[in-house]
């Protein structure tokens, strides 16, 4: 390795999902084992005038109150469900103040803005096509670049925070907002920037609801990750954010970004490799970068979508590297599968586990599938953690594992 690596810390983070707004709401829901999933009745105001309430035989993790979020007038062109969710999420905890501190400390031009999303402002395009009713142009009130284009949310956050460093969106389906940590850390290590705002935002839309429906991957009940009778995912929406800085310059640190690993399945567009080969490569890469032996990881937050194939593959991959020595769980039964925001939301869960010294046990799953050989927690466990891993795997065979370490 020719390039010197300076340690990077997470100096702040927040997440907003169906269980609530901000870190405390997430922690409280995890502690109380309270799920935010509800029977699917999706009728956002964008679609209400077309008389459609979308009732699917499944459960969703919808973030309450998005219809009441109002963006300031100068940001009106960004208005869509995804950016409202971003706005709501940005205003939780101490995040805006910390992001402003970052801008002042390093300069607006030395902070990167790297975000993950899968569907961006797709609901806004669905609305525009409904309004068009099959003929003519799209309505003038539909702003393509600032809503539908996948860059929308990174542009929005850069504008809100007044940051002018390099900004782009990583869009690799369900690994998107895990990979933003790797992308931002590389920009820092290469000296392009001194710090980064990373995160991910994905919001409910008809495309994902009906798309996963046609793949027959929607669970009719709240999802049960790694249960023997699991039968699919619960889709959710959410927004999460984190700040990355070099340890030597950060005035505070909640955790270390100890390592990351990325890989490709090269197997199938929407099914994982049966033995989780790509997942193994990603986890191994993250361990190697962090300089850790498997047994030094205290808890793994699994991708754990609760489909038959995904959990089986991930369970085998985890067992291949960690045996049954490391406790693991999936937290998707709390807020659903956030797709492009899954990586950041579950990074937030992993960071809470690290800072609060507990590992959340898989919700809704009483009996683990014996065919999955990983050690699955089904109850919360109080335990001191030095390192946690968070897994995110997506369509197209895109895999990313992150390792966070206790702040020193």
């Amino acid at each position: 390795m020719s390039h010197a690596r300076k340690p990077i810390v997470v100096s702040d983070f927040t997440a907003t999902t169906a269980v609530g707004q901000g870190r405390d709401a997430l922690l409280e829901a995890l502690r109380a084992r309270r799920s935010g999933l509800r029977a699917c009745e999706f009728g956002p105001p964008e679609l209400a005038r077309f008389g459609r309430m979308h009732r699917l035989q499944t459960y969703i993790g919808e973030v309450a109150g998005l219809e009441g979020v109002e963006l300031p007038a100068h940001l009106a062109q960004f208005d869509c469900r995804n950016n409202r969710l971003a706005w709501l999420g940005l205003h939780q905890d101490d995040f805006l103040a910390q992001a402003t501190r970052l801008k002042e400390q390093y300069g607006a031009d030395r902070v990167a803005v790297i975000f993950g999303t899968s569907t961006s402002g797709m609901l806004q395009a669905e609305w525009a096509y409904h309004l068009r009713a099959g003929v003519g142009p799209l309505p003038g009130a539909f702003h393509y670049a600032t809503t539908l284009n996948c860059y929308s949310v990174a542009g929005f956050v850069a504008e809100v925070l007044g940051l002018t460093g390099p900004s782009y969106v990583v869009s690799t389906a369900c690994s998107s907002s895990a990979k933003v940590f790797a992308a931002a850390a590389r920009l820092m290590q290469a000296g392009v920037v001194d710090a980064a705002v990373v995160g991910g935002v994905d919001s409910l839309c008809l495309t994902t609801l009906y798309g996963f429906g046609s793949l027959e991957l929607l669970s009719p009940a709240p999802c049960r990750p790694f249960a023997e009778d699991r039968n699919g995912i619960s889709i959710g929406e959410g927004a999460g954010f984190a700040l990355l800085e070099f340890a030597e310059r950060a005035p505070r640190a909640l955790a270390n970004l100890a390592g990351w690993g990325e890989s490709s399945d090269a197997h199938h567009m929407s099914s994982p490799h049966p033995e989780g080969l790509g997942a193994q490569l990603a986890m191994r890469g993250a361990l190697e970068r962090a300089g850790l032996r498997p047994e030094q990881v205290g808890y793994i937050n699994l991708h754990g979508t609760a489909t038959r194939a995904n959990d089986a593959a991930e369970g085998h991959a985890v067992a291949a590297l960690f045996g049954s020595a490391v406790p693991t769980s999936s937290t998707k039964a709390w807020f659903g599968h956030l797709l492009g925001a899954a990586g950041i939301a579950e990074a937030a869960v992993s960071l809470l586990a690290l800072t609060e010294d507990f590992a959340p046990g898989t919700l809704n799953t009483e009996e683990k599938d014996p065919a999955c050989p990983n050690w699955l927690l089904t109850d919360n466990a109080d335990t001191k953690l030095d390192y946690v891993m968070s897994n995110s795997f997506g369509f197209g065979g895109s895999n990313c594992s992150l390792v966070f370490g206790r702040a020193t």
Partner: protein
Amino acid sequence: MQPSYVAGVGVWSPVLPNWDACRSRLRGEAPAPIEAKLPPADWLPPVERRRATLSTRVVLSVTKDALTHAGWEAQKLPTVFASSSGSPDITNELCTALAAGDTQISPTRFHNSVHNAAAGYYSIAVACHAPSTTLGAHDGSAAAGLLEASVLLVTEATPALFVAFDVPYTGPLAEMRPIADPFGVALALTPDRAPGQIAELVVERTSGRSLPLSTCHDAQLEYVRERNPSARLLPLLEALARGEPAQIVLGMGSGGQLKIDVKPC
């Protein structure tokens, strides 16, 4: 940043069907071909080949072209894909069907809608398990991708394949976001100097928007450059084809500019 070296180039658009043709054209040695046809995606197994979108076929064409020129194996090569809109034709199909009340989305159409679909097909085609990122930054997508690829080379001391691609929207989105023709480019990049390389690149991100953006000398290609986000790389291809030193400047929206110093090898 430390220099990187271009070991191979791939390109596809209806007027630039491969790097050899592109190079001759940009050197003024050959006339423009009439509307080239996209080659079949014969790298893919038959099932995936039938499912491949236009974007995927462009990506497979340019990656094959670049890897062939570089003489590289693809299996362990990290990749960076940049695109403003991925598979925009699929977006139009999904929105049109949903607005008509058709909620029976084809599973293939759904998985083809992800921004990294072309990257996924590519990884299957060449059996590559290496890390791969797909990113977007609207009109700055290609510049952001080249920045990400350059940073990957520097921090990981690895060669990588950088790919930028954009194809036109169909339906009413085409008026809102005009993209004239499909355009794809692939660069085989390495941090190590070796014989037979095309050029040395020194990539640097600069703040603000003060430098004039690079344009094409060729009027027809300038038209293409302006109308496809990935074709913003055409001035870089011109410099590579002519074997002349050049400084290329690409816009990255609110995120500054990318300055590329090109020195022929």
